[in-house]
């Protein structure tokens, strides 16, 4: 059909929203509450436009197009309405922008600038509300909330968790967990997708920057750092470089200049995880153990199972995540073989994730008061440290990570994207079961951003039913099928965030949706170019087994690399 936007003809399709047509026509109408792929709520009213024949202004995000409609997106009336909405949102908004974690990435601030709001015309009662620091990874600052509802929707509709919702009504409305309790009592799994959705500083991670700086300045401490597979293909975006650029070497150089004594690669311990997890899968299949086995590297997913599906904890692989495996090796074997006191090693992980902060603090990950991981920085926090130290990432010459945990196969690197753990594990499980490498390593059926991907793969005499879910809502759907009696699956990979760690809750905020695809492509390009593409050919991992661990699932592995899960009682 044909409609008219700002006196120009535009082709539109029956059933699409006016906002979609407006955007396609190259016109930007601001919104605070619009979420691609979710039903519109029309909450913020910033997308209002004038439609000929309609008396009131029309919220374009939730209004369908019709033949011949004539739309003016920036009429004086529409612009004035938007201006007033932003003024009203600012009327009770705290004035501490200079100190705000979202200074620079705040959508409200950007809107105020775009719409030319330069003074406070209305003064609303400031909403006295306590800052909630109870969550072991996330902080809520309700005074900065603009009630757009995006956090509520992503939590319920995408993640299937529903830890938070609107409470009360009118000017007293706020967003919070059931019974207005603190986050730590709620079913929040700390995935951080709400942080990615929040337009302001109302939701953010609990910063570990200060602890890390203190450790770096402590001459008694040896500070080691590991970085997760998804970080090197994302970090560049924080410095205005195009998405999808791998800055692995430059990041290693930056970490050294920040003062870290050793720089290791979490993809190394991802290879280690593949060895243990593939062995565990083979063992479960051969010994008729609990199947399907489910991956355990995504800590929000683990918490989700412990809270909502405690009956499924036996399905979770007992393997610790790559972060925790490397942490455990560092504070035991590594310290011992170099004559270091584990208490004098400060172990930092750079992660695309907020839930990793929670994982590092789990009691199972702390032995005699010594944590396997002492601090977790998100990709954002690493960018902050790099800026703080005046490092020009682009100009740094690339450097290599340190031995003995700096070398990786590209299988471990694939852990950054949904389907990557599956692909890496299948490559090694095939080798373990048949003694031969797969003819074709690329498992394209597990690649891409689809929420649930399934395939049946022949390994020797066995046909394995494999499924990959990303986004906890999709994982829940899969669990419900299994609870309903589905029994054709052997192995399930779950990543809590839709798209996997490349779209994790600790990643760069405010990027184009296409950036996720670019990051994913970067990982597969690395894999395609790599000389070593299977975890069991990682020389460092082999050496570690030869000199210390013995064999996968052996005694040392059980002590250091495996863990257990406990049902959690929270308000669901």
């Amino acid at each position, binding site marked *: 059909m044909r409609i008219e936007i700002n006196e120009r003809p535009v082709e539109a399709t029956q059933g699409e929203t006016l906002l979609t047509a407006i955007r396609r026509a190259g016109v930007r109408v601001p919104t605070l509450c619009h979420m691609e792929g979710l039903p519109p709520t029309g909450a913020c009213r910033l997308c209002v436009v004038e439609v000929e024949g309609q008396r009131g202004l029309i919220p374009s995000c939730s209004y369908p197009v019709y033949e011949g409609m004539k739309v003016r997106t920036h009429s004086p009336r529409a612009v004035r309405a938007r201006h007033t909405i932003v003024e009203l949102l600012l009327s009770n908004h705290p004035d501490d922008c200079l100190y705000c974690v979202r200074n620079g990435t705040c959508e409200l601030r950007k809107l105020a600038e775009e719409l030319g709001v330069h003074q406070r015309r209305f003064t609303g009662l400031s909403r006295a509300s306590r800052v909630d620091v109870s969550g072991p990874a996330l902080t809520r600052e309700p005074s900065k909330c603009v009630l757009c509802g995006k956090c509520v929707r992503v939590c319920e509709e995408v993640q299937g968790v*529903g*830890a938070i919702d609107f*409470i009360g009504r009118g000017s007293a409305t706020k967003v919070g*967990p*059931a*019974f207005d309790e603190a986050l730590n009592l709620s*079913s929040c799994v700390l995935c951080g997708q709400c942080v990615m959705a929040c337009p302001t500083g109302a939701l953010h991670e609990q910063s570990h920057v200060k602890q890390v700086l203190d450790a770096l300045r402590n001459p008694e401490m040896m500070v080691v750092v590991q970085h997760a597979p998804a970080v090197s293909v994302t970090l560049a975006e924080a410095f205005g470089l195009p998405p999808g650029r791998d800055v692995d070497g430059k990041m290693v150089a930056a970490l050294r200049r920040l003062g870290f004594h050793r720089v290791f690669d979490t993809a190394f311990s991802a290879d280690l995880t593949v060895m243990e997890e593939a062995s565990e899968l083979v063992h479960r299949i051969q010994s008729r153990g609990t199947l399907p086995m489910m991956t355990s590297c995504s800590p929000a997913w683990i918490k989700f199972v412990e809270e909502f599906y405690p009956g499924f904890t036996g399905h979770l692989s007992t393997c610790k995540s790559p972060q925790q495996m490397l942490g455990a090796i560092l504070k035991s074997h590594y310290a011992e073989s170099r004559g270091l006191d584990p208490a004098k090693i400060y172990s930092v992980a750079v992660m695309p994730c907020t839930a990793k902060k929670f994982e590092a603090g789990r009691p199972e990950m702390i032995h005699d008061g010594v944590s396997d991981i002492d601090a977790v920085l998100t990709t954002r926090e690493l960018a902050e440290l790099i800026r703080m130290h005046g490092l020009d990432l682009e100009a740094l010459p690339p450097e290599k990570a340190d031995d003995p945990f700096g070398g990786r196969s590209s299988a471990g690197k694939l852990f950054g994207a949904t389907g990557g753990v599956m692909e890496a594990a299948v490559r090694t499980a095939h080798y373990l079961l048949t003694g031969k490498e797969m003819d074709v390593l690329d498992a394209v059926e597990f690649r891409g951003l689809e929420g649930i991907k399934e395939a049946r793969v022949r390994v020797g005499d066995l046909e394995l039913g494999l499924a990959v879910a990303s986004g906890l809502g999709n994982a829940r759907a899969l669990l419900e099928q299994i609870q309903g009696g589905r029994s054709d699956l052997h192995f399930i990979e779950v990543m809590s965030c839709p798209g996997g760690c490349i779209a994790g809750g600790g990643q760069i905020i405010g990027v184009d949706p296409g950036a996720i695809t670019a990051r994913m492509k970067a990982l597969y390009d690395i894999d395609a170019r790599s000389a070593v593409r299977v975890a069991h050919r990682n020389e460092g991992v082999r050496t570690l087994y030869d000199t210390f661990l013995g064999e996968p699932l052996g005694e040392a592995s059980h002590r250091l690399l495996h863990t257990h899960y406990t049902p959690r009682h929270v308000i*669901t």
Partner: protein
Amino acid sequence: MPTLQVILNEHPHAGRDALIPVLQQVQEAQGFLSRGAITAIGRHLGLPASKVYGVATFYNQFRFQPLGTYHIQVCRGTACHVKGSLGTLESVQRLLAIRPGGTTKDGLFSLETVACLGACGLAPVVCVNGEFFAGMTPEGLRRLLDTFRKRGTAHDPGT
């Protein structure tokens, strides 16, 4: 009065569209919505507790504390407002140290505001356990509360 479980059993296979009727029935039976009731309703209807609590707090009709022995309704309708019911409400709040929706710690009094009791000729009007009291000035109200205090022993406020 039916128990929570009986009420839930009356709504087999119900979903989110049954939420408000279920909340109303449970409050009718129990006098308020307890935490246990809210989470149980959520589980029965397949909704997170945050959603049930969110919907319940949106509507004025739901309370989250048990009723007191004496349930005080202060009319905040137009006529009562003109006749000074804000002062009446403020003095109840001050004297009992509770807000609308709340119950005193001893379980003796609970407070609620209502939009209009339909007795505008008696403004400002207060209703206690269904009994109307006319022209409730702050001073008259203080005496009224004293009378009830002498009359009634508190029951267990419950949880």
